[in-house]
């Protein structure tokens, strides 16, 4: 019945004007729908079968994108209530919880999706590394990816301050003081971020504008470029196809009557386009359906988290009562742990080198080996180095998160130190 309704609507002038193609029934229409729809044209009309396999990417990049969309949606709704002023921000959180329709669940979704996005962008980056997806011609897209990772951290960090509770206030105080350790520019940079020497009204408005305008726009732009380049670089990275032999070419060129659309042109070393059309499937419905399903799965996880766990909200920010220990957001706790050893080396040199190394990676490691293969044996050295750095980052973050108690002293999470009595 739905089908009949849809067909009736499509047959009207209005229906035709909106949906140029309609539900495709022929291969021609399947190609048409991907090409003519704004929302689908980021993808070619046909994709390699590998793209449909979950294990190719584990859906990590797409999940990151979906989380960004969920964050944008919930974030815009939250903006209808939020006032970036120290007198109102915390009260806004209370109003969201107690009187705004669906206010709490929106805030929960936004909070948990933000944490998940940091996690999934990082995982996506690991996937790109372990499948050597940054090899030529995709070097620059990897660099854009690094930019998006930093933007994600920036978005999460700037949003962290907005509830204006103790957690927010002191996490941002600690986080921005790490920036202050940079030589020469550190203090200036910190001042620029905070609009003062301490976190206050001007820091809140700066973080707010960064969080809702500057960083999201930058992210949208970079995400657009990122996706566009994935498509222009011939889709997902995959192992090189065997070089076509003379016979293959002859066979491929034989049926002159059959033409392949421009949209199926993949960049390659040979002009052989249709060497194995069997490996290509139509984006609609094969890929699009799977993408929609992945969105629903992402939404399910975010909703479950948001319904059963409330976003944290501590006491209202109190500049004279620092908690002990004051911790940065979890994704900076590895950094804070390093800073505890040495402010300069841990806070400046190591993170600086790491970001530089990430950006330089595709230009240093450019031999096309193991592309599109998980943990390829041909890349043992690169994989070992990356895994060591990754493990170090995880270990440091875990130590900073659960093994650090008052005064940043080591403690076992199941045996927390007794709170220090206040000085009398």
């Amino acid at each position, binding site marked *: 019945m739905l089908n009949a309704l849809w067909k009736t609507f499509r047959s009207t002038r209005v229906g035709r004007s909106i949906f140029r193609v309609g539900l495709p029934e022929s291969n021609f229409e399947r190609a048409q729908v991907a090409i003519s729809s704004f929302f689908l044209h980021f993808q070619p009309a046909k994709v390699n079968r590998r793209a449909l396999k979950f294990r190719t990417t584990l859906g990590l990049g797409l999940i990151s994108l979906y989380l960004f969309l969920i964050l944008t949606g919930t974030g815009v709704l939250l903006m209808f209530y939020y006032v970036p002023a120290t007198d109102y921000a915390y009260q806004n959180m209370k109003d969201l919880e107690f009187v705004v329709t669906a206010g709490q669940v929106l805030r929960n979704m936004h909070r948990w999706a933000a944490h998940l996005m940091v996690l999934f962008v990082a995982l996506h980056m690991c996937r790109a590394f372990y499948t050597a997806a940054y090899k030529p011609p995709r070097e620059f897209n990897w660099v854009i990816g690094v930019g998006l990772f930093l933007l994600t951290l920036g978005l999460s960090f700037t949003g962290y301050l907005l509830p204006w509770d*103790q957690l927010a206030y002191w996490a941002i105080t600690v986080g921005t003081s790490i920036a202050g350790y940079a030589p020469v520019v550190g203090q200036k940079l910190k001042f620029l971020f905070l609009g003062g020497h301490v976190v206050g009204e001007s820091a809140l408005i700066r973080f707010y504008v960064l969080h809702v305008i500057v960083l999201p726009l930058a992210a949208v732009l970079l995400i657009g470029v990122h996706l566009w380049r994935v498509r222009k670089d011939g889709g997902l990275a995959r192992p090189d196809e065997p070089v076509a032999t003379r016979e293959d070419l002859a066979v491929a060129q034989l049926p002159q009557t059959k033409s392949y659309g421009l949209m199926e042109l993949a960049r390659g070393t040979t002009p052989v386009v249709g060497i194995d059309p069997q490996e290509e499937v139509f984006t609609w419905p094969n890929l699009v359906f799977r993408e929609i399903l992945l969105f629903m799965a992402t939404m399910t996880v975010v909703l479950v988290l948001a319904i059963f766990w409330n976003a944290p909200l501590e006491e209202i920010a109190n500049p004279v009562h620092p908690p002990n220990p004051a911790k940065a957001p979890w994704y900076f706790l590895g950094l804070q742990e390093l800073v505890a050893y040495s402010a300069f080396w841990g806070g400046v040199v190591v993170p600086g080198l790491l970001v530089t190394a990430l950006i330089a990676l595709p230009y240093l490691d450019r031999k096309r080996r193991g592309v599109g293969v998980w943990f390829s044996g041909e890349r043992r050295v690169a994989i070992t180095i990356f895994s060591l750095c990754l493990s170090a980052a995880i270990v440091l973050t875990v130590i900073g998160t659960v093994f650090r108690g008052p005064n940043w002293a080591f403690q076992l999470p199941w045996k927390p130190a007794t709170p220090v009595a206040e000085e009398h």
Partner: protein
Amino acid sequence: MEPSVRKLYLWFAVLGLLVGILVVTAFYKDQHREWKDWQQRYIKDELARAATPEQRADAARTPLEVRQVVLPDLDRVDRCTSCHVSVEDPSYAGFPLPLAYHPNHDRHPFNKFGCTICHQGQGRATTRVAAHGHVEHWDRPMLDMKYIQSACAKCHLPADMPEAPDLARGRAVFEESGCIGCHKLHGAGGVVGPELDNVGAKRDAAWLLKHFKTPAAVTPGSAMPPIKASDADLSALTLYVLSFTGEALSAYYVSMKTIPGPQAGRRLFAEKGCIGCHAIAGKGGTIGPELDEVAKRHDAQWISSHFKNPAAVTPGTVMPQFNFNEQEIRALTEFLLSLTDTNVIGFMRIPSLMTPLDRGKAVYKKYGCAGCHGADGQGGVPNPNAKTAEQVPGLKMVSEGYSKDELKKRILDGQREIPVMNAKKAPPPLYMPPWRGKIAEGELSDLMEYLVSLAPKGEKVEF
């Protein structure tokens, strides 16, 4: 269609159902709020009570909504009435909570005061547990009704509040225990212990009570001597200390503190030198009439118009016109009216009426000397590792060992380093703070009179 796509339809069904269920759950959870139950209960009750069709229609029209008192001056939004719907309806007197009527609110109308300014708790919250404040990350849970009088002190002076006897009693215990000797309150007091300006916001009643009984039990290493008082007095002291919230209220509420009461009148009476012409309790000048029982001779109206213009009320009087303002006139009138039913001299505390010895005794109390040196200077307060028998020295014999000038110097300079009994142990925690700049010259002289008087009469002490 390819079979692999057909398989996806099952996934669409499963995930679609899941997302659907979750969205419905989220909305149900959001829409189901406990205050709605209480409002429904209230409406049901109103319907049952309705005698006329109009009343019935009125009750049926009662909207189900969050009710709130917005108090920008107090920086509060109190939504307590979302559950406590009938606080202003006397016909709900004695009803079980939350639908009970709140008696005695005529002088503190809810639309001007809300609820949390007295009761504390979390006004913005709309669930019972969160609103009553017994949740993590909310440090002002509802005040136990036992201590509710502490809230009065936010706007009123304890002495002006006969309705809050515990508050006045707590203040008396506070003064007698000499807390001020070590602790600063509103900028005045010693420096040995921490300031008390907002200790009532930082600590709860249980902590304070325990602290007064055995300070070291809640603050390890505390040198504060336990306060020896009855349980009722300690409870009153707790109540009084809870009132030190350090809250900055807006002008309207703070002005209650200057509402002319007998205390303010007493101060004015002393300042303006009324005692030069008028006598109270047999002391003072004789030019004007005695004032002990002036309230029996005249009413408030007469007294206040007399202050405005004495000659207009009593032609030919020699009393000058003082140009008091309205507030001052009301305060003085209140004071004079209060004289009949009070222990005059005790209440008056007009320095010029007192002997230097009595004034000295008051100074001893004012600066909290008793906190360490004991009531009447008998000592006995422990001070571990002090050379003086591990105690703060008593003051009974002090006039034997020091001249008045030496004593004055000792009080003004204080003594930071206390001689120790055992050099290896930690120095004694209590010490004498300097009082220079805090104590007035006249007060110091009066204090000398008192200290000298402490020596037992008729005994010669041999050293």
